[in-house]
């Protein structure tokens, strides 16, 4: 089964238990090969199916989280405050990024897919959507 994007179900549960503090915890982004199976059932970061190659470190990179969770109308939202930039890497076909909470036992937050990309001795940049109630990376209405 290919990767599919979703807010992880375990994350939704953990919202109810107050597990995550997105503006304070260390949030990381890990890349997954197009052959991996990352989806809403993913509960934590795993190296299985993760991209590998020169310059890429298992576990991915720390994302910048200067944006505090916010709300507008009836929708709460949160988006990392900077692009996720993987520099000088060589990786095979990759189509999914998993955001997870490195401060909380690597618990999964959400999986996001994009058109499959290979990178050779170069940079993969994932620019975040606008942080608002309409397009924010994570929205709860």
């Amino acid at each position, binding site marked *: 089964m290919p990767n599919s*994007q*979703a*807010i992880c179900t375990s994350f*939704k549960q953990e919202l109810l238990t107050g597990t995550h503090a997105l503006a304070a915890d260390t949030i990381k982004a890990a890349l997954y090969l197009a052959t991996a199976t990352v989806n809403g059932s993913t509960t934590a970061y795993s190296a299985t199916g993760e991209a590998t190659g020169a310059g890429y470190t298992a576990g991915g990179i720390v994302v910048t989280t200067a944006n505090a969770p916010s709300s507008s109308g*009836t*929708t709460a*939202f949160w*988006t990392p405050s900077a692009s996720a930039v993987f520099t*000088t890497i*060589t990786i095979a076909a990759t189509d999914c990024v998993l955001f997870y909470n490195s401060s909380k036992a690597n618990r999964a937050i*959400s999986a*996001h*897919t*994009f*058109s499959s*990309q*290979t*990178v*050779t*001795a*170069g*940079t*993969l*940049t*994932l*620019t*975040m*959507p606008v942080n608002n109630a*309409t*397009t*924010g*990376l*994570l*929205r*709860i*209405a």
Partner: protein
Amino acid sequence: MDEPLIFTSKGNLPVSSLKYRHEWLEDEVAITFIEEYTLDGEIVRKNAHARLKEGLKAVVDNQLFGNSNSESPYA
């Protein structure tokens, strides 16, 4: 003047020795800009920059006590 170099899978090479191409892709998820440098037909550097259009949304389903209708009474 020194010739500009670029890092590739074969180390630093003069930019002028490489063939460059780029393309834009757009789908429902992202707008992606791809840059490719080749040397004698071999890709020696490839970058991809994707701008995610929209994140993901979860909807909280409210339920009133005694309400047998599963449809949310709130927006």
